[in-house]
């Protein structure tokens, strides 16, 4: 019964989405306030309805209602409660429902918090949001209905893929979707601005917090996915340039560019049509990501099932959304006149450089990811692009971008002083040089690129610190004065410093991966394995039973200078429902390095294959991502009151104009 209610709520949401995508648009064109107001109420109602549908599906999972096909195929009565709930989005239908839930959440949030938006802009934004919702709700109802019943109901379900039964992965899709779908708001604002034919500083101020929120969530989502791959797949890699990873990385790259170019629109009234284009492209890439991951054209853990009808439908959605918005852009963008003029060496210039490099990076990743699919589609040879391709195109483009991160914020708007900026950055330069020299000395000239990478990370970190210190006049004024300045600095400025430092931390973690040590050995109980100054002693391997699996658990004592520092227990699990083995790695971290153990197979003669890695600075990759997202959140906390100011000012302007 509850399931049918959920289905009904979803159909109702579709009808409301149809209303939401038309009436407010007509209202905005005819300046009919009542019609425009429909956008807000339908957006809120749509969120409530989709939330109801989602709750109905969660209910079916929690109560193990196997008469629902989706539950029967993806859940099992012995599964722990957490994975019963997260299993809701561990399959195609449920994850699409989550996608639409988050879409309607953002639509509802625009309606709820958008009181200070001009009514016509709000109506148009909500209408575009409604169109996206309509497309995806139709997709779910026609091709991916999660509420299908099964008669007769099986006694038990088929269970969730064990590799997905993991706390890290449980929350990876919601964050990723918050990011992907969050960019739909920037997209809707961009399309609404094109329809209105007006982009101004106030528009940028409204768009930026939404973009920032989506960007933070996407950063966390990507980091979680990478962390999950690191600790579950058992070979210690954290990024494979896998098409599915690229699918989430491309919107991140362009989204980062959008975040920066929106500053220029806000502060200097320039780069308008470029920013609009970035907003469209960012969400388009999110849609393409969804298509790549959901259509089954890629081999991965994300490709749940291959159904050509779904791929065709998403492709159609893509064509309408991307083709439509880009056509609109082609028609209306020339009318957007840029205001502020700036010299190449200026804050704007540095942000343009950032945008060019990020966009180019995204383009090369796009090419490497889609070229094989394109060739396949036109009947060409079947091929794939090896991951060295990405390293060889991505790294050379990222290096200048990272170099620019430090001095960009030091340049003044309109016309900057590059020499002056570089002079003020001498401390950062010296710090980077010291790191490079120490690195070369300590590693005996080790991989030069990795040492330079560490130096680059230091340059970005120290450069950001110097910029912040200058703003608060640290060391040049009394400490009390610096403290007063720091408190009065806009939150966005602290956020930027924090995010750039996070980037530096991530870069350092990536660069240091060149020094990892790897050992694969067959070990018998009682034997020792030396690794990077540690001694690993295998105490034994025992059989243990979990809630829905059995496992071989190795107990390994880690010794350092004869002292016991840790006991690690990597496992090899077997899930009888799916007849599938997985490995559970054991990680001992000092935050400066990880010891990483994965248990392999028994050799039948009392020995076990053990894979052991020592990975310096690897936790920094994810710590840096978290710091970046934290910077975004700090910046976001600033925006709230500034949005208010922008609205008041804009209202004053429109009143004066009328």
């Amino acid at each position: 019964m509850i399931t049918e209610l959920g289905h009904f709520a979803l159909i109702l949401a579709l009808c409301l989405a149809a209303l939401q995508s038309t009436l407010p648009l007509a209202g905005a064109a005819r300046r009919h306030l009542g019609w425009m107001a429909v956008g807000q109420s339908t957006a809120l109602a749509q969120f409530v309805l989709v939330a109801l549908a989602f709750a109905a599906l969660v209910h079916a999972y929690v109560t193990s209602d196997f008469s629902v096909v989706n539950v029967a195929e993806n859940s099992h009565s012995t599964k722990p409660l957490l994975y019963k709930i997260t299993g809701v989005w561990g399959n195609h239908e449920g994850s699409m429902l989550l996608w639409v839930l988050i879409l309607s959440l953002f639509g509802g949030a625009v309606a709820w918090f958008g009181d200070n938006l001009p009514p016509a802009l709000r109506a148009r934004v909500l209408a575009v949001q409604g169109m996206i919702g309509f497309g995806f709700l139709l997709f779910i109802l026609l091709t991916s209905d999660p509420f299908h019943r099964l008669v007769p109901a099986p006694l038990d379900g088929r269970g969730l893929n064990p590799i997905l039964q993991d706390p890290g992965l449980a929350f990876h899709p919601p964050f990723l979707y918050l990011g992907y779908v969050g960019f739909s708001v920037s997209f809707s604002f961009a399309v609404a601005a094109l329809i209105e034919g007006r982009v101004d500083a106030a528009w940028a101020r409204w768009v930026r917090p939404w973009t920032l929120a989506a960007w933070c969530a996407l950063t966390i989502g990507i980091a979680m996915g990478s962390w999950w791959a690191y600790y579950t797949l058992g070979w210690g890699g954290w990024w494979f340039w896998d098409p599915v990873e690229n699918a989430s990385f491309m919107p991140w790259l362009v989204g980062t560019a959008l975040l920066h170019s929106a500053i220029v629109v806000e502060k200097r009234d320039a780069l308008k049509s470029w920013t609009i284009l970035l907003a469209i492209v960012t969400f388009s890439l999110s849609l393409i990501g969804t298509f790549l991951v959901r259509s089954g054209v890629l081999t991965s853990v994300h490709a749940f099932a291959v159904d050509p009808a779904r791929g065709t439908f998403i492709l159609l959605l893509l064509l309408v959304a991307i083709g439509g918005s880009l056509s609109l852009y082609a028609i209306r963008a020339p009318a957007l006149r840029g205001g502020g003029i700036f010299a190449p060496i200026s804050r704007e210039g540095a942000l343009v450089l950032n945008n060019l490099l990020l966009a180019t990076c995204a383009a090369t990743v796009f090419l490497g990811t889609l070229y094989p699919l394109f060739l396949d589609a036109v009947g060409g040879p079947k091929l794939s692009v090896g991951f060295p391709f990405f390293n060889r195109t991505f790294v050379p483009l990222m290096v200048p971008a990272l170099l620019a991160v430090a001095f960009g914020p030091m340049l003044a708007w309109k016309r900057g002083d590059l020499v002056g900026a570089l002079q003020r950055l001498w401390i950062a330069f010296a710090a980077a040089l010291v790191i490079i020299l120490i690195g070369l000395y300590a590693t005996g000239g080790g991989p030069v690129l990795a040492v330079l990478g560490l130096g680059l990370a230091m340059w970005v970190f120290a450069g950001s610190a110097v910029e912040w210190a200058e703003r608060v006049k640290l060391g040049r004024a009394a400490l009390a004065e610096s403290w007063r300045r720091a408190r009065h600095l806009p939150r966005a400025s602290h956020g930027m410093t924090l995010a750039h430092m996070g980037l530096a931390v991530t870069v350092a973690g990536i660069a240091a991966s060149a020094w990892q040590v790897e050992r694969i050995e067959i070990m018998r109980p009682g034997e020792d394995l030396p690794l990077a100054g540690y001694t690993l002693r295998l105490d034994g391997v025992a059989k243990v039973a979990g809630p829905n699996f059995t496992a071989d658990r190795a107990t390994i004592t880690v010794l350092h200078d004869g002292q016991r520092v840790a006991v690690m227990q990597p496992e090899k699990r077997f899930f009888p429902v799916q007849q599938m083995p997985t490995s559970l790695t054991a990680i001992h971290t000092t935050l400066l390095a990880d010891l990483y153990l994965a248990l392999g197979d028994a050799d039948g003669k009392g020995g076990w294959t053990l894979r052991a890695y020592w990975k310096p600075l690897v936790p920094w990759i994810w710590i840096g991502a978290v710091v970046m997202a934290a910077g975004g959140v700090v910046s976001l906390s600033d925006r709230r009151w500034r949005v208010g100011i922008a609205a008041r000012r804009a209202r004053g302007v429109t009143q004066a104009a009328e």
Partner: protein
Amino acid sequence: MTRKRRRLLAVLAGLGMLGLATALVLSAFSDNLVFFYTPSDIKTKSLPEGRRMRIGGLVEPASVEKSADGKTVAFRVTDGANDVPVTYAGALPDLFREGQGVVIEGALGKDHVIHAATVLAKHDERYMPPEVAEALKRSGHWQGEHPPQGAKTP
């Protein structure tokens, strides 16, 4: 700076970036395009040695042999019509099993053995990698996707 000069500069910067990207992509493409072959292709065509390639197929039953030190493993990959020997030094994925679909990335050695750099097995027991399906289709040993039991309602 006038509007015209500014636009010219922006266009030049854009073009420069495009040129740089094209150069990078082309140089990286030339070494890193990995073509896909089936075991039959390897038997029947003379393929260059040492070039990275992908091979899809099923792990031939009773062909997996581990070396004494446990570091390398040898097995054969088949598409039903032909099979090729593969050696791999590294950790096999959890779902690597005899009779299951795998995708191997590696190079053909002088000994006509594929030296694998990576071995990919499917993540999910219900899912067949498209490359493997392709290899089986080409050799005529395709039996269709295993339909999940009781999945569709009437």
